[in-house]
C-alpha cells in the first residue's frame, strides 16, 4: 500500500516544529537569515532546508486571513525531476522520489523542472541537488517521517494514501460547511497523484500551489519537432534560395 502524508493547512499554526524536526533528523545545518518583517523563516527552501512553512496574508471580506502551508517535495507520481534528470540520479523508489547523491552531477535541471520549486542545489557552486526524502530511512524501518512526529495540532498525518484521501475528503466537507467554500483536497490526481496531500482552505493559488501542475517534459517531442521544422525551413529559405538558385542562374548564364 502506498504511503503518503496529509497536510491539513486549516490546522497548521505555523509553529515550524516540522522544520526543526526535519533539520534534526536529516542533520541539516541552520541558515543565516535576516529579519524580513515576517515570521516566515528561512526565506525559501534550499539544499539545507527541505521543508518550510510559508506564511501568506490575504484579505477576505474586509478581514485579514493568515494562511500557512508546509512546503516540501511532493513526491509526484509523474515527477518532472525524474523525467529531465540526465543521469538517472532522480528516480522513484517505490512511491517516493529520491536523488542519488552518487549519480547526481549538480546540473540543476531538476531545479528548473520542478513545478513546486522543491529541489535545490548545494552551495557553494555547486553541490548536488537535494530535497525532502520522505524520511525514507525512517519509513522503511517502520517509523513515521520526522516532521509528522512533532506537529502539535496534528496537521500532518502519515499513513496509507487511500485512507488519507478519504480522511482529507471528509475534512474538506467540514471546512466547506464552515465558512471555507473554496476548500479542496490537493494532490489526489495532480501529476498522477502526489504523495503529499493537502487539505486546503482556499484555492490552490491562494496557498502558492499551481492549480494544474504539469510535467516539464509534457511537450518535449513537440519542442524537438519545432526545432527541426525551423531548420528545414531555413535550409530552404536562405540557403536553397540564395545559394542554389543563384548557382543555377550563374551556371546557366555560363553555359550560354
Amino acid at each position: 500500500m502506498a504511503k503518503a502524508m496529509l497536510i491539513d493547512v486549516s490546522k497548521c499554526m505555523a509553529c515550524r516544529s516540522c522544520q526543526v524536526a526535519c533539520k534534526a533528523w536529516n542533520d541539516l545545518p541552520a541558515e543565516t537569515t535576516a529579519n524580513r518583517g515576517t515570521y516566515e523563516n528561512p526565506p525559501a527552501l534550499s539544499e539545507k532546508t527541505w521543508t518550510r512553512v510559508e506564511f501568506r496574508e490575504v484579505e477576505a471580506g474586509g478581514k485579514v486571513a493568515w494562511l500557512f502551508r508546509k512546503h516540501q517535495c511532493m513526491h509526484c507520481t509523474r515527477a518532472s525531476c525524474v523525467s529531465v534528470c540526465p543521469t538517472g540520479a532522480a528516480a522513484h523508489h517505490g512511491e517516493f522520489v529520491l536523488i542519488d547523491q552518487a549519480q547526481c552531477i549538480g546540473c540543476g535541471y531538476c531545479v528548473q523542472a520542478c513545478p513546486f520549486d522543491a529541489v535545490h542545489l548545494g552551495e557553494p557552486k555547486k553541490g548536488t541537488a537535494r530535497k525532502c526524502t520522505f524520511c525514507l530511512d525512517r519509513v522503511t524501518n517502520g517509523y513515521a517521517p520526522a516532521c509528522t512526529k512533532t506537529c502539535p495540532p496534528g496537521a500532518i498525518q502519515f499513513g496509507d494514501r487511500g485512507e488519507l484521501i478519504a480522511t482529507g475528503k471528509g475534512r474538506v466537507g467540514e471546512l466547506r460547511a464552515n465558512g471555507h467554500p473554496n476548500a479542496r483536497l490537493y494532490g489526489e490526481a495532480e501529476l498522477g497523484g502526489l504523495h503529499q496531500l493537502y487539505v486546503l482552505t482556499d484555492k490552490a493559488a491562494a496557498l502558492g500551489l499551481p492549480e494544474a501542475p504539469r510535467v516539464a517534459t509534457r511537450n518535449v517531442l513537440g519542442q524537438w519537432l519545432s526545432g527541426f521544422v525551423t531548420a528545414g525551413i531555413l535550409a530552404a529559405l536562405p540557403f536553397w534560395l540564395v545559394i542554389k538558385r543563384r548557382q543555377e542562374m550563374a551556371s546557366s548564364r555560363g553555359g550560354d
Partner: protein
Amino acid sequence: MGELTWGTPLFLDLWMAGMAGGAYFAAFLIYLFGADKEKRLLKLATYIGVPLVLLGVLAIIIDLGEPLRAFNMYVGLRPWSWQVVSGSGAASLRAWPPSIAFHPISPMSLGGWILVVWSVTAVALIALWFAETAESPEQPGGFLRQVADLLRPLVPATKALTWIGFVFAVLLMAYTGVVLSASSQALWQATFLVPPLFVVSAISTGVAALMIAVQLTGAREGVPTMAQLRKALAVLIIIQLVVLAGFLLWTGAAGVVGPLISGTLGLFFWVGVVLLGLLIPLGLEFSALKGRAVLASPALVLLGGLVLRAVVVIGGQT
C-alpha cells in the same frame, strides 16, 4: 539578480554550441547546393566548430564544481546511495557492470550524447580530410604522414560522415532550445518558439562566424563569395525578427514575458538583441557602408546571439 541555478557558463555553451551547429549546417548546405565544390567552407566550419563545442562543454563541466561527475551523464558506474546515510535494506546496488546512461526523455541526456557524436564526427572528418590532402607524394614523410597513410583507406567514409555531421548539427541547434523549454520556468515552457528562436539564432551566428573566419583566414578565393553569405545572413536576420516577434506575442499572451522585456534585462534585450544584434546589421546590409565595414554586421550578429542566450536564460529564472 540573486541566485541563478543556470548562469554564464550555460548561456555561453548554448551560444557556442549553437554557433558551431549553425556554421556546419550552413556550410554543409552551401556545399550540397554546389557553391563550395572544394569544401573549403565546410572544412572551415568544422575547424571552428570543434573548439567552440569543446569550450562550451568545458565551461559547463567546470561549473559543475566536481568536473569528473560529468561522466555520470554517460555511464552508470557507482553504487546506488542515498542523500541520507542509511542502514536500511532499501538501497539496491548496481555497481557492476557499468551501464550506459541514456535517458531520451531528458533533453540534457540527449544533448550530452549529441555533443559527443557531433564532436567525434567532426574530429574524424578533420582527420580524413588531412589524410586526403596529405596524399601527394612530394609531401615529406614523418609521423603525420604515417598517420595519413593509416587513415587513407577510410577516406571513402567522408561523405557519410559529412551527412552524420549535418544531422547532428541540426540536433545540436535544436537541443539548445529544447533544454530550456522542457522545464517549469514560465518564460521557457509557455511557447513552442524557444527552439525555433535558438535554431534561427544558431544559424545566423554560424553564418556570421563563417564570414569572420573567411575574412580573417584570407580564404576568400574558391569559396562562395562573401556577398552570398551576406545575403543569407540578411534573410536569416529578417526571419529571426519574425520568430522573435512571434515569441514575444506568444509569451506576452501567456503573461510571462515581463522579466525579459523590462528592467535591466529588458535594456539588454532591446539594445543588445533587437537593436545591435538584428536591426543595425540588417540596416548595414542596405547601407553604403557594407563594402567597407565587412566584419561589422557579422560581429554584431554574434554579439546579439550571445545577449539573446543570456537574457532568455536569466529571464526564465527571474
